[in-house]
């Protein structure tokens, strides 16, 4: 067994891997932003104390968390054309799936973030005459976000790893880019190794960053 890396060139990376890499990043960013937005809404629903909001939000979150992500990706790819009434590409379907799926996980993070705020803060906001939405927007959520930044970022790293699962519907992400390059050049071993190294470097680097950040953002009381 000998490894030959000589076939790697900038042209190869540009023509096969780069667009996949950009899609993986795009998917991660959109799903994180969308997931945190809808996840926070779900968390507010679950903590609202009103059964008609709590029950559907809880059911949605528990359902998403008990199905394999690959199956969720397949489900959306199957159902999206029916729901939208027109065909939809694998990439667009993947983006919608990841926002929907990650919302459930970000919901649980935001829920524990909101619950980590001392009750005195909520009472103080109410005592100042703030409405529910003012209290959430100005007092609770900023602190909850700050407390949860390390966990949110760790979830984003997991999300980035999970983007490789769009393989199931044939979307062109970074892993797919490496795989196609490997097939075209007859060098699957080198390309899978390279994919593993790149994923490792990105995820390991980010997890180091999270550790540093964790010490920086801690609220000192």
């Amino acid at each position, binding site marked *: *067994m000998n490894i030959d890396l000589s076939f790697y060139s900038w042209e190869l990376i540009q023509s096969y891997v780069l667009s996949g890499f950009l899609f993986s990043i795009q998917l991660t960013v959109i799903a994180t932003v969308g997931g945190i937005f809808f996840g926070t809404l779900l968390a507010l629903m679950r903590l609202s104390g009103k059964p008609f909001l709590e029950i559907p939000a809880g059911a949605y979150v528990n359902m998403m*968390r*008990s*199905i*394999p*992500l*690959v*199956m969720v990706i*397949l*489900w959306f790819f*199957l*159902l999206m054309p*029916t729901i939208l009434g027109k065909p939809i590409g694998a990439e667009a379907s993947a983006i919608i799936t990841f926002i929907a799926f990650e919302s459930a*996980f970000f919901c649980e993070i935001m829920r524990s973030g909101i619950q980590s705020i001392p009750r005195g803060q909520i009472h103080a906001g109410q005592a100042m005459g703030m409405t529910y939405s003012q209290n959430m927007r100005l007092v609770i959520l900023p602190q909850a976000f700050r407390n949860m930044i390390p966990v949110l970022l*760790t*979830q984003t790293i*997991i999300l980035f*790893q*999970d983007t*490789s*699962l769009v*393989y*199931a519907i044939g979307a062109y992400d970074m*892993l797919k880019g490496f*795989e196609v390059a490997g097939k075209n050049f007859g060098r*699957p*071993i080198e390309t*899978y*190794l390279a*994919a*593993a190294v790149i*994923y*490792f470097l990105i*995820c*390991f680097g980010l*997890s180091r960053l999270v550790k540093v950040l964790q010490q920086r953002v801690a609220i000192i009381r």
Partner: protein
Amino acid sequence: MSWNWEVFCKSTLEEDFSPVCFGTGGEITYLDWMLSAWGWTLSVSALGLLVAMILGILMGTLRTLPPDNLLTRSLTTLGNVWVELFRNIPVLVQVFLWYHVVPAFIPAMKGFPSFILVSLALGFFTSARIAEQVRAGIGALPRGQRYAAMAVGLTTAQSYRYVILPMALRIVIPPLTSESMNIIKNSSVAFAVSVAELTLFAMQAQEETSRGIEIYLGVTALYVISALTVNRVMAFIESKTRVPGFIAAASSGGH
């Protein structure tokens, strides 16, 4: 839209339906196929979990060794490197590594069926996460337990064998429950190397029958049933092994 649950009774070879929904005389229905796929999912998960438990408990323990001498320090480093390596590569990429790359380096593994390779990939991936939980569990023990073991003259190995691990392994059962449920969910990546498990069944049967919704509902239900069963079994184990009067909060993992 209208339901068509009869699709499960359909033969996979011909256009006819079996009255009892199970194939006869060498013919198999989609229901037969799905149940056999469920068996593959459970087998891959069980074998993967076995590998993950053994390696995860070993590596998690190594990471907590006291830094007495060069040997224990290097074993701790080994545990740390192990966790970072297997935690930071996506599980699907790890499956491809085991399937395409590892046999090229270790010729003896060339003849391994993909079922074994996927189980190893899942096992190694999950072992990093179990190692984290085990380390946290050992860390959650009161320091006095370790000192007490030293004070009665136990060696490091003995103190782990008789004092630390019997406590720590019971503390980590709740997070191990969620890892066991995760491994069933993660076993779905086995479709990528053509192991005939539930996700591959879902993809192929959907294409053959065009009754995707019924097929996916069946598969999703089986995944949920499997995860719930594991959850109940682990809850039973937890209630049987609980240390009376000892409450420690171990952190639980992601997905």
